[in-house]
């Protein structure tokens, strides 16, 4: 874990003011599309791949976020497949999962670690 943490390279993603409270935005980072979600109530941030694996559509950032019990989740706008934002697993009964990335906020800026 120690080595992982030290090798993390944080990418500057955007300003906090570019994001949307209780919703998602899409970012272009190193030619990848990343979805960034902000739970204002919990003050928690999550980043995942923007592609919904079901029909391979670049769309998750436009999905609705929410919770199942305590678990934060996002629902794809196309067919309402839902994914846990902390683990990336699909929680609506399919086997596909999405990649998740770590997020940190410093001085009003959002950083995302692409290599974890």
């Amino acid at each position, binding site marked *: 874990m120690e080595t992982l943490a030290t090798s993390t390279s944080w990418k500057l993603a955007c300003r906090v003011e570019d994001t949307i409270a209780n*919703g998602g*935005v899409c970012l272009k980072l190193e030619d990848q599309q990343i979805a960034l979600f902000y739970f204002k109530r919990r003050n928690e941030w999550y980043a995942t791949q923007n592609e919904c694996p079901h029909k*391979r559509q*670049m*769309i998750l950032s*436009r*999905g609705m976020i*929410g919770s199942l*019990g305590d678990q934060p989740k996002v629902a794809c706008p196309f067919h309402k497949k839902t994914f846990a934002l902390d683990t990336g697993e699909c929680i609506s009964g399919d086997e596909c999962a999405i990649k998740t990335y770590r997020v940190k906020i410093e001085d009003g800026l959002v950083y995302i670690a692409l290599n974890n």
Partner: protein
Amino acid sequence: MKQKTIIIIGNGMVSHKFCEKIRKKDKVSKIVVFGEEPIRAYDRVHLTSYFSDKTLNQLYLAEQQWYAENDIELHLNNPVTAINRNKKSVISSKGLQLDYDFLVLATGSAAFVPPIPGVDKEGVFLYRTIQDLDLIKAYAIHAKKGAVIGGGLLGLEAAKALVDLGIEESTVIEFAPRLMPRQIDDSASRTLQTKLDNLRLTCLLQKSTSQVLGDDHITGLSFSDNTQIDVDILIISAGIKPRDELATACGLATGPRGGIIVDETMRTSDPAILAIGECALSNDMIYGLVAPGYEMAEVAACTICGEEKSFNGFDMSTKLKLMGVDVASFGDPFIAEPHARTILLDDAHKGVYKRLNISADGKRLLGGILVGEASSYNMLLQTVNNNMPIPADPEVLLLGEKNNSKPAGSGLESLPDSALICSCEGITKAQICDAVTNQGCDDFAGVSKCTKAGTGCAGCVPMVKDLIAHTMKQQGKYIRATICEHFNYSRQELYDLVKIHQLKSYDEVLDSVGKGDGCETCKPIVASILASLWNEMILGRGNDVVQDSNDRFLANIQRGGTYSVVPRVPGGEIHPDKLIVIGQVAKRYGLYTKITGGQRIDLFGAHLNDLPAIWEELIAAGFESGHAYGKALRTVKSCVGSTWCRFGLHDSVSFAIQIEERYRGLRSPHKLKSAVSGCVRECAEAQSKDFGIIATEKGWNLYVCGNGGSKPQHALLLASDIDSATCIQYIDRFLLFYIRTADPLTRTATWLNKMEGGIDYLRNVVVNDSLGMAETWEKEMQELVDAYECEWKVAVRDPEIRKRFVHFVNAPGEKDNTVRFETLRGQKKAADWNTLATH
């Protein structure tokens, strides 16, 4: 338990059921299955759906690993070729030799092919296996005229397959004087034929095919009466013949017309060999249905394990939906005078035929036939099977289900506990009630998982659901449709709470009456309630992120992640200048254009980033949002009416425009559609709308609660010969009553179907103001009408809203570079996502 070897020949549905049953009773014996087909057991009952909506994967009865998990050895594509009864061994086509203690023949049946000259020509198919279906599918591409020999149950299924495959005209040829001769009578057959005619399916009865015409491939059929028809694809479905050739070869007793003779324990003439399913001849009967086959599987498993159970015939009652037409036959459908009296309902207008046969003393129901409407089938079948007493005026059994005042589930309590509800799986009323009372199941999914009820032909599903609701009600469990884990309220309760507390944003609602972070279920519901109540711009107050994806970007998301744009065209009337603008905008932004079903124009393929600019141009030309993205008023369709049409009684276009402009932007539990027709010819199809208006000599007739879609339903007459002002008054009241009380995503038709008292109650509320709400609702509606503002006009001029219309927030000028289009007929279409999808 001593380890035995049980070999099963055949790998169909009954064989599979036998494996399930025997493995449950006997965990140690070696079980080996030999199958002829190259794929594992699949659902043959729903074979036709392979052409319409199901894939092979959905038809399999078990996952691949099921066999290993249950320690069952499966040999596919490897049929047994000989049985040696002395050595008690079998040999397979691939040379595998194996000894058995018990042998179970589940070889099923083959299609009976009548000896007609030319049946070996290309283009002639059977309808039995997945392989047959694949061959038909491949050949059908070039075929225009289809035919099916055999008008029985399976023949009609095959005819449906031809329709599903897009064959334009098909003919069903039956030797008997009626369709489904084993199940229904002549009058029922006529009713069914009329329905099939509408689907371009011609039925030729009492026809004997004499020859298949054509050189190497079929071009037609000729009949014994010297007539002929053109045909380029033929399916033969003239009955089944049991696969008894292995049995005959090893000297087992078979019937004179085929079938392996079995006793009531399913043993053949050799006690170590059993036969089940369609190959077995039990009491001179071959059972060609799956439910009796499953029962035989259970009996055979008991016999092998030394338990006592016998097969004593089986109820052959059946209900099916043939191309949208319900057909049911139960008990003894044909019994007549002097052994029984018949009650007939033959409604040629609605295409409904019903026949009930009651005992001569009028006390018991013996059987019957239902065509065109069969919702009472399950209850009638139970009445026959449980020998239950019938009402003194038995015609209520025929007409009863039409009566709205009858509560759902009545009669269920009079069913005995032993009543067999799911005959495929042999599940009784007691077992279903027990799942609810003692095992904590409270919905169909739970009960079905627990008991397997409803997993076979699914015909009993409505009755199982009624039983669950009935049992829960008896236990005093209140079935309350709460929204989700974040709001412990029904939609109506939440609507009232939001109104009383004057809540204006989702966050306020969640803070005041909810918990957690919300989810994709409650967010759009709350958003819809807020919009219905206050009619504020839906993207304000942080409510943008709780809107469904279409509402959030005020456009309809399409494949590939681009959007479609639908400007409002009230009443479908449009000035040529505006048509030109739509064309110019479409060309400038490279959009695909199509006329919608609601008399307007849809522009597809717009990037998220382009939406505000597109709308700026449309707004400048006088367009406004069409709300095609919202659960809101969509269109008010019109016919041209008295301004041009020689039949028109009133100006339907002007009235449609007035209505559309009054209710535009009105948000509701589901989408709302309307239409105005200028005369009784009804060219605007107003009776298929949530509210529809038809001109009469004296004014307007107002119809409500109709819809098209997957379950079409005609609207019902609410008021007749009313003037325009009264019509609008009634619509105001009707809409607000609906908006306040309907469950989420419930169209007006479903709302009315659930309403106790039905249309009479609704009329009382709307026309006679029985709730005393009329004035309030009219006032509320006027406030909503006054508060209307085009959402797109607000969006394009508000920089905070406008900046959300970008794909990348850190590169706002860039569009999504993964969007792909293909060309089709000179326009574009979204790239096929199935070639992209992982599964």
